[in-house]
């Protein structure tokens, strides 16, 4: 039976319903909850070198969507909308809708693209969840996908003089690498701290991959692959991430030369920044009542997401604004959270975010992050949710916060509960 304190809390909850947030209330199950019934991702492979280098965005989407359709065992006609987070692809709106149909969904399944740079995957989850909350749709699929092999990131376009002459807006012309150096400079993040952070990411990912934990997240893909030497095209099964360099240490990373010597303090290197990678992830969302009626297994719950802006020149520290904001909205304290998935765009922002937020490093990216696994821009937001849910399941824990910095100066964060 309940302790007197617990009985007292129920009475207090009746009197102060506004305070009925926090871990306890987040873990309650309500038929109106937005739940996740399937969360999977493709392997993440190096752009232009890895197993997905010859898989274009449309093929990547078709393969993932087909896998989701088959694995979920849901009648595809029930999926009313698919939101694809994608940053770079040209003609992305054509690709999204066409890939949905080609993946075996009926013509009644709609599709859209959403793009807020590195948060696009999480934005897709939020968009689909909001549609379900507002009653626009009952069942939807949130996807994040990026083929960086085929679509390089060329940075900002030419913009109006009013932007170029604006003291803050003009910062958006700075390349991402420069913003990383800005963070390192402004907050005194040392090269050594960055290398140590990056090495830890590699080591955690190595441990996770060797232990087979990542297999829980991944759907193996059957893709076309062109041998770079012979030019021969063959079909190959891609089933593991290829960015994880085993045996990486802070010392070995310390030998890598600066990637941006033109910007002081030039602490960012190819070893302590996120990798350029191909990949995709998808989550099937619906209300709990709907999932129960359909007999779909509930793996987790979406509890909300938020976004916050900051100066574009230090865009990397966006999570230090977005995470406290979502914690406040959900009534959580950071000790209530079991896993933080923070995108490692650069080690400079990674080190700063962990320090500034006072997070327990053991809870942050327990399977490594984008430095080890790679950062397919549009995919990352969805990929982190898949990883977080899998890790919560493994640890038998409940609450994850996922967050990322966003180019042009923003941070996004979301809260998820595992219901394994």
């Amino acid at each position, binding site marked *: *039976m*309940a302790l*007197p304190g617990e*009985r*007292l809390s*129920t*009475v207090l*909850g*009746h*009197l102060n*319903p506004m305070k*009925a947030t926090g871990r306890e209330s987040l873990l*309650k*199950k*309500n*038929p*109106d909850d937005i739940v996740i019934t399937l969360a999977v991702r493709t392997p993440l492979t190096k752009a232009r070198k890895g197993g997905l280098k010859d898989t274009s965005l449309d093929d990547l989407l078709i393969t993932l969507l087909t896998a989701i359709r088959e694995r979920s065992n849901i009648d595809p006609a029930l999926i009313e909308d698919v939101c694809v987070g994608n940053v770079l692809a040209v003609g992305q709106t054509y690709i999204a809708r066409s890939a949905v149909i080609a993946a075996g969904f009926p013509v009644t399944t709609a599709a859209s693209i959403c793009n807020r740079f590195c948060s696009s995957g999480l934005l897709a989850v939020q968009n689909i969840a909001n549609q379900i909350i*507002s*009653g626009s749709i009952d069942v939807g699929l949130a996807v994040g996908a990026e083929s960086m092999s085929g679509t390089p990131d060329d940075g900002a376009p030419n913009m109006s003089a009013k932007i170029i002459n604006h003291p803050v807006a003009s910062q958006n012309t700075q390349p991402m690498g420069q913003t990383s150096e800005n963070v390192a400079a402004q907050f005194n993040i040392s090269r050594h701290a960055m290398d140590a952070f990056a090495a830890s990411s590699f080591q955690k990912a190595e441990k996770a991959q060797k232990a087979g934990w990542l297999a829980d997240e991944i759907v193996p893909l059957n893709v076309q692959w062109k041998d770079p030497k012979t030019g021969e095209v063959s079909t190959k099964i891609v089933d593991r991430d290829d960015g994880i360099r085993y045996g990486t240490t802070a010392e070995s990373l310390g030998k890598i030369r600066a990637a941006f010597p033109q910007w002081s303090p030039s602490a960012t290197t190819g070893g302590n920044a996120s990798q350029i990678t191909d990949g995709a992830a998808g989550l099937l969302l619906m209300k709990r*009542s709907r999932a129960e009626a359909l*007999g779909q297994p509930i793996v987790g719950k979406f509890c909300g997401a938020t976004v916050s802006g900051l100066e574009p020149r230090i865009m990397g520290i966006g999570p230090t604004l977005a995470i406290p904001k979502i914690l406040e909205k959900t009534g959580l304290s950071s000790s209530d959270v079991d896993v933080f998935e923070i995108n490692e765009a650069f080690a400079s922002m990674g080190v700063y975010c962990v320090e500034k937020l006072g997070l327990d490093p053991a809870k942050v990216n327990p399977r490594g992050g984008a430095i080890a696994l790679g950062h397919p821009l549009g995919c990352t937001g969805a990929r982190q949710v898949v990883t977080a849910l899998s890790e919560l399941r493994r640890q038998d824990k409940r609450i994850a916060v996922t967050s990322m910095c966003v180019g042009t100066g923003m941070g996004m964060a979301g809260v998820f509960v595992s219901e394994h």
Partner: protein
Amino acid sequence: MLEYQTQGFNGYAVKYSPFFDSRIAVASSANFGLVGNGRLYILGLTANGIQPEKWFDTQDSLYDTAWSEVHENQIVVACGDGSVKLFDISLDQYPIQSWQEHNREVYSVSWNLVSKDTFSSSSWDGTIKVWSPHRPQSILTLPTHSCTYSSAFSPHSQSILSSVSSDSHLRIFDLRTPPSASNHLVHLIPIHGGPPVPGMASRQSFQPSECLTHDWNKYRPNIIATAGVDTIIRTFDIRNPKAGPVAQLYGHEYAVRKLAWSPHLSDLLLSASYDMTCRVWTDGTSSTPGASGGAGREIGRLNRHTEFVTGVDWCLFGSEGWCASVSWDKRVLVWDARAVMGR
């Protein structure tokens, strides 16, 4: 107005006997039901005020009670230790049956008013159980997956059971349906959903909030009133579960703890609240010929309690309007609702 002090015990529920107009039962708990014993009072309404006929002490707090509809001396209680106990008030001290199946505090008990041979209990453990006084185990367990503050049999059908719970939903179970995957659940009604607005695609809706109490209308078999933490009393017509509430009654300043429809008038509702008041409401469907229907509204208020009011019940006999209330102020008040109406 009559008054009785439940010395040392804070009231949680009051029920008039269905057999005697002069007998009421009060479920109460020491230390506000947080820790300590419970006590079931059997009180007599006499010419010399309220007199205790008997009481029974229990190891843990008592949160609700329900008289047997077949046996004038039998009464069940909902106990904080997860047990449901049946007392025979012609005996002393001990319950004649104790069922220990719920894993957490039992918050409500309700007798089947039609078949009269079963009763239900609901609990913090997220289940409703149906019992027969003659059987050593429960007959049926219905999951709600959330703390279920109140469950009740329909007064019009022996196989229809309802519940409200902390997940802000009203559930209707029909025990005639095959159990299957839905466990007899036939309707799941979001209490926080607003009524549809003509011409608008979306409807107003409220934050989900814990629902603490509900009651079936005694004359209109499809009408249920609910209330809870968001202070709003709502009525629902279960023939149209998607339509949202029929009436929404605003007025209480804190959570509503107990609701009871009048056994005499189909539109009259009595509520007890953490705001220390009992209020009398019409839901706007006055059955009195010539009376204007109009909107539901508060028509009377009892301000005499000095702590959270936790229980109310109407007297089934005599002139319509007599009722009883209990409160954390350790007082049982028996009063005439007509005396507070029309002010």
